[in-house]
């Protein structure tokens, strides 16, 4: 997919683990895994907002567009 999720990199910078983030933003680790592996079809604004709030970052730090053509 042309949208890349850079959540792992941001988590590494913050020294936070996936399960800690999942707990902080109140979603399951399975759903967070779907997001991290790029299998997600959509991200709710509320989820994005919660991630940005916990990780103190911007949506652009997590999502990246890559032209595949």
């Amino acid at each position: 997919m042309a949208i890349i999720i850079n959540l792992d990199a941001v988590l590494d910078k913050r020294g936070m683990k996936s399960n800690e983030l999942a707990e902080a933003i109140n979603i399951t680790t399975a759903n967070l895994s779907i997001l991290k592996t790029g299998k997600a079809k959509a991200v709710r604004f509320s989820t994005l907002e919660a991630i940005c709030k916990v990780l103190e970052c911007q949506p652009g730090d997590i999502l990246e567009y890559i032209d595949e053509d």
Partner: protein
Amino acid sequence: MRSSEWTKNIFSVTYYLLVIGWILLLGILLYAIFINSDEILEVMGDAEEFQIKSENALYTCLTYGLLSGALWIYILYVFKNLIQNLIYGPLFTKLQIASFNLIGQLIIFTSILDALSIVIVKAILNSRLEIEFDLFDFWFVIAIGTFLIFLSQIFNKARMLKQENDLTV
């Protein structure tokens, strides 16, 4: 009892009745072939739709009846399983979509085959070509078949929407 349970039971009873009817028809064919065809011919000779007067015609009609019956039994079998799956399993699965599509196609195929066979058998047995089968019934069954195919397409779209919803984080 819930309406879904009623539907399941009605389909199950119809299925088993059809299987019993099919076995009886097979018994009649075997009886005509191996024991006594005259008795069967006497009964069939007085039938309203086809007046069968020769052994070959009798065997042909009974064999066709068995083949057509087997197809309808298979349709009901798939339908019965589909309803069970819709009641007890998760909705919008690939199996349900494929089943709706298959049932729709089989109903259309069998209805056209039945209609054609009536015309052909009448032309051969009675040496006359006229369409006496009920056209309303024919188009009604075809409409049910096309509706089921349409329903399978709706289920396919619903499956995609469900998948999208499941993969929304």
